């Protein structure tokens, strides 16, 4: 294991404002830039969701036109997946935490790291620009299936808005590659002496595996996006078959196959779900161990199940295509792999529960969100057993049942992981504590809101409500479900309100929060050994060494109820076997 490169720490103090906070190569500043950008995108994506919810509850209200509704659907999905969950986790927390938690002074390639953030910001700006072009943003949904997304005649948003979306996603893929390579390299070669892979905190494991997934799948999306751009602007026909007539116009493309897009998109798209859930699984594990004052139960099984999820996640993409017309034999194969991937998730859930058993639980806001994660992950994950089983998927496919499922299991759960992480590491990021009272208000609004919003969507789906419809009044059996839609919209307002409380808390705590010491939560991992906030280079003196596993809480015979990783056996006065 290479020793961390020596860094001239005194130089950090001479950096100008621009070098220090804007074009910074410090992994912590870049992490915070990513995280704050994601929160801004969350506000936009959330506002779009509110507009859609008003429209669904009161279809006559006229908040949105039909094409604006589709633009909102598409941009909400794109923003939340690509510009909130992915960059907050594999950008925000990955940058801030990886070097601090493994005892490195910075990332392996600090300049590339800075570049990845600015490329990311560029992709976000290109995407947002599509709000201001003729025809508006894309209409084809975040999955952008051709020919709808390939032919400008097919929808108003299939013009310039769709092209900007493709360009933005391609740029985003570049940024993601720069980041993933950096995380993988840093974790593999820059761990401090004693930090073996088997002693890595689960957050680092989650980020490591998510980075591997991102490295191997984003290029496929990028290739697909560029092929679609060629179809749109260079006269190729990768995805558009012969003989289509759209809007009375005979389309000149010949010989393409729209199913190819679905395969390429979901080969990326399903691993993407795990890219945004593996890091929160790690964050939640760290938080639960800390606030239950117990070792995480079954650490090897926790790592093993994350590795199993990573491997299997490459073999399940076809469950998005059970009714697409692909060969039925593929449906059988993908159903088996999809249900198998439920097993490691079950193992993780039970491990978290056993970690709580006979613990000494402290209910910080971080802990509330971590426990909320377990509940929503289970309430959303279990319905995956319906959708992953090809035959059962047929009636539920493309209905609100699916919308409820993925929002709970990956949207809300990942977001709760992000909130838990923010409350937990805010003191380390800014040297101040967040307001716990406002934090509890945020949590209670959020948890009541998400239960009320997403659980009833299962019933809508079973009753036949299909997705992405601007207005359901044409369907008599859907019109009678309007009271459920009203209930969902009112619940969704609670979530948004909670988000505003969070934003207020974030900014007031930044300015006025009580000062945090090095280790306010009495944690065991290396970031708590650094000052709050840590200086550029993280440790002014020598970097810490690691003597034990990451979760040695309540060790019998130890003086305190936690044994930090950096404490030598002599200082600790007791040794454990892990």
């Amino acid at each position: 294991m290479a020793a961390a490169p020596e860094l001239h720490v005194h130089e950090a103090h001479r950096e100008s404002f621009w070098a220090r906070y804007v074009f910074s190569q410090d992994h912590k500043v870049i992490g915070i830039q990513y995280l704050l950008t994601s929160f801004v995108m969350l506000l936009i994506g959330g506002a779009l969701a509110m507009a859609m919810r008003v429209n669904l509850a009161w279809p006559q209200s006229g908040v949105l036109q039909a094409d604006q509704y589709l633009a909102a659907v598409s941009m909400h999905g794109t923003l939340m997946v690509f510009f909130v969950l992915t960059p907050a986790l594999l950008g925000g927390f990955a940058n801030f935490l990886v070097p601090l938690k493994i005892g490195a002074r910075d990332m392996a390639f600090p300049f590339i790291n800075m570049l990845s953030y600015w490329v990311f910001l560029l992709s976000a700006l290109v995407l947002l620009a599509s709000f201001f072009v003729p025809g508006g943003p894309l209409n084809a949904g975040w999955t952008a299936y051709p020919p709808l997304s390939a032919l400008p005649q097919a929808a108003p948003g299939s013009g310039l808005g769709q092209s900007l979306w493709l360009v933005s996603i391609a740029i985003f893929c570049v940024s993601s590659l720069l980041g993933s390579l950096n995380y993988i390299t840093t974790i593999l070669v820059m761990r401090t002496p004693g930090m073996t892979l088997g002693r890595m905190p689960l957050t680092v494991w989650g980020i490591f595996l998510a980075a591997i997934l991102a490295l191997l799948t984003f290029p496929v999306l990028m290739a697909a996006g560029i092929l679609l751009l060629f179809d749109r602007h260079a006269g190729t026909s990768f995805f558009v078959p012969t003989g289509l007539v759209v809007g009375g116009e005979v389309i000149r493309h010949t010989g393409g196959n729209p199913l190819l897009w679905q395969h390429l998109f979901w080969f990326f798209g399903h691993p993407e779900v795990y890219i945004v859930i593996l890091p929160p699984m790690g964050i939640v594990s760290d938080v639960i161990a800390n606030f239950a004052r117990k070792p995480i139960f079954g650490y090897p099984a926790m790592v093993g199940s994350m590795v199993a999820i990573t491997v299997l996640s490459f073999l399940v993409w076809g469950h998005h295509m059970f009714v697409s017309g692909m060969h039925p034999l593929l449906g059988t194969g993908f159903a088996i792999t999809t249900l198998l991937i439920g097993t490691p998730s079950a193992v993780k859930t039970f491990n978290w529960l056993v970690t709580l058993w006979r613990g000494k639980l402290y209910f910080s806001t971080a802990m509330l969100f971590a426990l909320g994660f377990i509940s929503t992950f289970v309430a959303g994950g279990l319905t995956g057993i319906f959708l992953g089983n090809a035959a059962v998927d047929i009636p539920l496919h493309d209905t609100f049942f699916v919308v409820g499922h993925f929002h709970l299991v990956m949207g809300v759960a990942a977001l709760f992981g992000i909130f838990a992480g923010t409350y937990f590491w805010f003191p380390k990021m800014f040297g101040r504590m967040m307001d716990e009272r406002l934090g509890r208000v945020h949590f209670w609004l959020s948890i009541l809101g998400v239960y009320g919003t997403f659980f009833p969507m299962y019933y809508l789906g079973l009753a036949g409500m299909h997705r992405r419809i601007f207005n359901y009044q044409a369907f008599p059996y859907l019109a009678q479900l309007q009271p459920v839609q009203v209930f969902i919209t009112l619940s969704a307002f609670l979530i948004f309100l909670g988000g505003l409380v969070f934003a207020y808390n974030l900014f007031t705590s930044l300015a006025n929060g009580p000062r945090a010491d090095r280790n306010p939560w009495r944690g065991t991992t290396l970031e708590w050994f650094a000052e709050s906030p840590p200086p550029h280079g993280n440790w002014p003196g020598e970097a810490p060494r690691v003597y034990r596993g990451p979760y040695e809480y309540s060790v019998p015979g130890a003086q305190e109820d936690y044994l930090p990783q950096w404490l030598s056996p002599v200082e600790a006065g007791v040794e454990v076997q892990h």
Partner: protein
Amino acid sequence: MAHGKPAPSSEGTRNPLERTAGSGLSLGLLFWLFMLAAVAATLYARRAWWLPPLAVREGASIDRLIEITLGVTGAAFLLVHLLLGFFVIRYRTRGQPRAHYFPHNTPLEVLYTAVPAAVLVSLSVAGMVTWSRLHAPPPPDAFLVEIRGQQFTWSARYPGPDGKLGRVDPRIPQPFNVDPQDPASKDDVTSSEIYLVVNRPAHILLRTRDVQHSFWVPAFRLKKDLLPGRTTELWLTPTRTGTFDIACAELCGVGHYTMHGQVRVVTQEEFDRWLGQQAQRR
């Protein structure tokens, strides 16, 4: 390395960790309340917001699988929320001594790996049986009908007395690319209305002339995408007469929400009479 030592927790001012001790009672009760609300809402939903009454024979095994999966996942949901609520209430900080140091227990871990794996494999096998049956070749007595989607309407094409649908070639610049030279196309009947025969299997070919659509009749359970450039298919046997709503289940453009249609399931006599009228009208 004095700053590396854990600060004694008995210092005068309480540290942030201890200030968060609070009470987990409300959180534990919330998890239990959510559990009860989910059960109550599901029981109510089964009467008000559930699958519409089934109208095809092949849907019965899907409905049965849904019930079985609901039982299995419901049990897991209840187990997790019961334990989650109980642990939160029981082990909230109330001046108890240290937490129990319990990092491993192999038998327990093997148990809760093996049981979910066995349940999931069983469910996928049960699903596979139904899936294979749905995708078997249609019964020999099935009659052929082509259902067509375009932005944003549904229509149908029936073979005439020859029982054959006219050939399709994407290079032919006709709507839906039907070859007018093919003799089999001469007696084909196209209609904006879709009729099926009760108790007689229908072999449905699905085609689109523009973007992707998805043919879905909630009362039939079955759903299949209309894939540009290809013909997809499904077959089913309506079990009762009546009118059933069609929805397009795949986003197909601005009018996606208006792409509503109807299937009329009638007796063989009524069907023959209707088809005869359609043929004359042509």
